């Protein structure tokens, strides 16, 4: 955790380092934050937003020096600071009894499946069939199956894979909302 305070001057220096104008630097800042959150999430962090903010705060504290001396794309600097922040988060620190978080309750499969069934009804029939057919569990024949499915739809296998991905992400979002709503 950073102890020094982030002043408006430091923040402005950061934005001016990131873009030719404060406005463009602001856009870049938001974009970097969003990406950091997503990257930390993909690394399995429980609190990706906190780690993203911690990374940004640490970089902001050095903004005046960076603006004057740093050469190259600022993204590299963010990436290296983010790496330190992430590595630190892997070492559990001592926490007081009051701060002990609730244990993570892994949802039961059947419960998730109930939610999945509800969410599947939100898809059109052909979308539902497509996503379920695509995930059929048949080991090596799967590649062949995906190729045939793509052919029938007049798509490349990569385009089909992306279409399925979009459907799956929507479905997953719906199921997680259902699980989290039901858990409250």
């Amino acid at each position, binding site marked *: 955790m950073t102890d020094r305070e982030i002043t408006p001057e430091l923040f402005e220096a950061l*934005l001016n380092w990131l873009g030719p104008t*404060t406005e463009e630097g*602001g*856009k870049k800042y*938001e974009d970097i934050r969003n*990406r950091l959150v*997503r*990257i930390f*999430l*993909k*690394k*399995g*962090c*429980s609190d990706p937003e906190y780690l993203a903010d911690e990374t940004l705060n640490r970089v902001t504290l050095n903004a005046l020096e960076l603006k004057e001396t740093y050469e190259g*794309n600022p*993204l*590299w600097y963010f*990436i*290296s600071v*983010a*790496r330190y922040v992430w590595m630190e988060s892997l070492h559990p620190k001592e926490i007081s009894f009051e701060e002990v978080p609730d244990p*993570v309750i*892994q*949802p039961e*499969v059947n419960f*998730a499946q109930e*939610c*999945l069934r509800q969410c*599947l009804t*939100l898809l*059109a*029939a052909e979308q539902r*069939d497509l996503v*379920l*057919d695509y*995930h*059929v*569990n*048949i*080991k090596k024949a799967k590649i062949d*199956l995906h190729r*045939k*499915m793509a*052919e*029938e739809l007049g798509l490349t296998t*990569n385009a089909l*894979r*992306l279409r399925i*991905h*979009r459907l*799956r*992400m*929507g*479905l*997953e*979002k719906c*199921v*997680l*909302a259902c*699980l989290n709503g039901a858990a409250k």
Partner: protein
Amino acid sequence: MLPRRFAVSTEDKNRLRQYLLGELSETDEGEVEFRLFSDESYFDELEMVENELIDEYARERIPAEERAKLEQRLLRSKQQQQKLAFARALDAEVEERAKVVPLPAPKSKSPVWFNPQLKIAAGVIIAVGLAVALWLLLQKSDVEKGMIALNQAQGNERLIQSRVSGLNYAQNRTLRGNEIPALQDRQARDYSELLFQQSVRDKQDAASYHALGRLYLAERSFDKAREQFEKALAKDPNDPQLQSDMGAALLELGQSTGESEYFAQSLQYLDRALQLNPSLPEALFNRALIYQQMKNPQAKDAWRKYLQVDSTSPWAKEAERNLKEKT
């Protein structure tokens, strides 16, 4: 707009798999992250590779060494555990479905009706097909589903002042100077856009263009919203909600650019909406708002007229506040 796509090679896929498992060197990991920062399609690929890994884990098809790495690196967080729960549920659903629905296969060119087993299978398929057709009739359209997703994307704060048809009430949020406005739930937003664009492609009707325009308006892409509303109005000029939403887009354009000409155009659409339906709440709300913006003395009367048709909803509370504090 959906992101532009770049080609992702098999080598990229393998590298992303190694990245997720924590097998890359510090330098290689940095390079992957640099690309994740600048290439949206690479991020999509990362998510696809991650899903494939989790699917393999759920089906217990992952080598022991990778299994341990995945557990240590990815599956520690609640979010990732829920992804795993989703993967397991999907797998279970696919398994159950495989018991009753045959695997998809390319159409055969040889005559098959002489095979009695296939005749029975065909009978079952026809029966299932009829049931599915009936079920389809009861299903919501892409536009309706997209609107559900759009309302989810908007959440509890709206980024514009005007009232848009089909969007639930959400508190109007004041934007900060440098802020890039975005709807609260990005994935729900993308999902609604996917459904609306699909509907536009399939039907090219007023309702589809109108829905896509609502999404753009809700996220403050006013020019894009206006473009879609124009397309919808060309197909159906007598829809009062569509007229009102076009008025809302012009109202917002007037506010964001400071050009009063937009307000005048907006009023024309709102008046037309009210000719078609004199008690349309969206149009009454937006007309009062525009008078208020123009500091027109008719604003008070306009808010009162709105409150005559709606005195109880959260929109009415906002109208009352505006009447008391801003006119």
